[in-house]
């Protein structure tokens, strides 16, 4: 009886999907960085005080000065911090357990967020070195970097 009443007063529910078919216009700075990825190179941008931002920003995050001096940086670097995902979610870049990490590439002064395909959490540590694994087909998106992998794996 109580169950019947509950069924009658319970609110309805229905599946509801929202789709936003956005196209991003990226502008000259991000556009150049993404163009570089398509050609399998990684470029940062230099601030007036000499720091190299990777990924590049249009304006200095401290002084807000417009930036334009691009610098190619290394395709390997150091893990500054990381988090282990033992159960990847459907939209995640890898379908097996992986690490998110902030990675400071050689020659850069800031860190890039990406995934590391390390196989097991025990392989991960702050300060470890990792290198880029390029996607087979590059199109000019951040996902052209399929992920990073421990440098020793090469």
């Amino acid at each position, binding site marked *: 009886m109580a169950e019947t009443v509950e069924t009658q*007063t*319970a*609110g*309805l*529910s*229905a*599946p*509801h*999907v*929202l*789709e*936003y*078919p*956005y*196209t*991003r*216009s*990226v502008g*000259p700075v*991000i*556009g*150049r960085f*993404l*163009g*570089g990825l*398509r*050609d399998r*190179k990684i470029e940062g941008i230099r601030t007036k005080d000499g720091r190299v931002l990777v990924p590049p920003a249009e304006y200095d995050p401290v002084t807000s000065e417009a930036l334009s001096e691009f610098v190619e940086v290394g395709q390997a670097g150091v893990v500054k911090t990381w988090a282990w995902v033992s159960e990847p979610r459907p939209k995640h870049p890898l379908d097996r357990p992986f690490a998110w990490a902030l990675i400071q590439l050689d020659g850069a002064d800031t860190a890039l967020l990406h995934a590391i395909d390390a196989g097991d959490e025990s392989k991960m540590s702050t300060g470890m070195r990792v290198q880029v694994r390029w996607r087979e087909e590059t*199109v*000019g*998106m951040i996902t052209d970097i399929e992920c990073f992998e421990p440098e020793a794996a090469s």
Partner: protein
Amino acid sequence: MSEPVVGFGAPIRLEYNYTPGSASSRYLRSIAEGRIVGQRCPNCEKVYVPPRGSCPTCAVPTAEEVELAHTGTITTFCVVNLSFYKEIEPPYVCASILLDGADIALFHLIQEVPEGREVTMGMRVEAVWVDESELAPTLESIKYFRPTGEPDASYDSYKEHL
């Protein structure tokens, strides 16, 4: 230097389990029974359909349910010349319909307009429902509204609801 990228497609798809709440659930359930149920404000006594559970002017809950007629008056309308649904051939008419007993108009299709007659403000219309076996908690259970053939309602009778 690499050829710069101008842009990229970034589709976003978000899946929800929408819950319309108490007032809308009761309204949709009434539709599934072939009835139209609104709610009356205890303060200003206006009747809202579909109800949202609160009077938008008095900000008090609208608990009292009111069963509404399936007939009403077109307060305003537009002629749609673009094809949105392949089920309906343009041009067709969408109208604001003030159900008898309600204080807020709802939107629906107008069909079965007799040859030689044009849709007008004040036109009297009635709901045409799907077959009883197809009734569901959706406003699509009302296929459309059609003219009743009664004389048009006077402008004064609906001017507050434009």
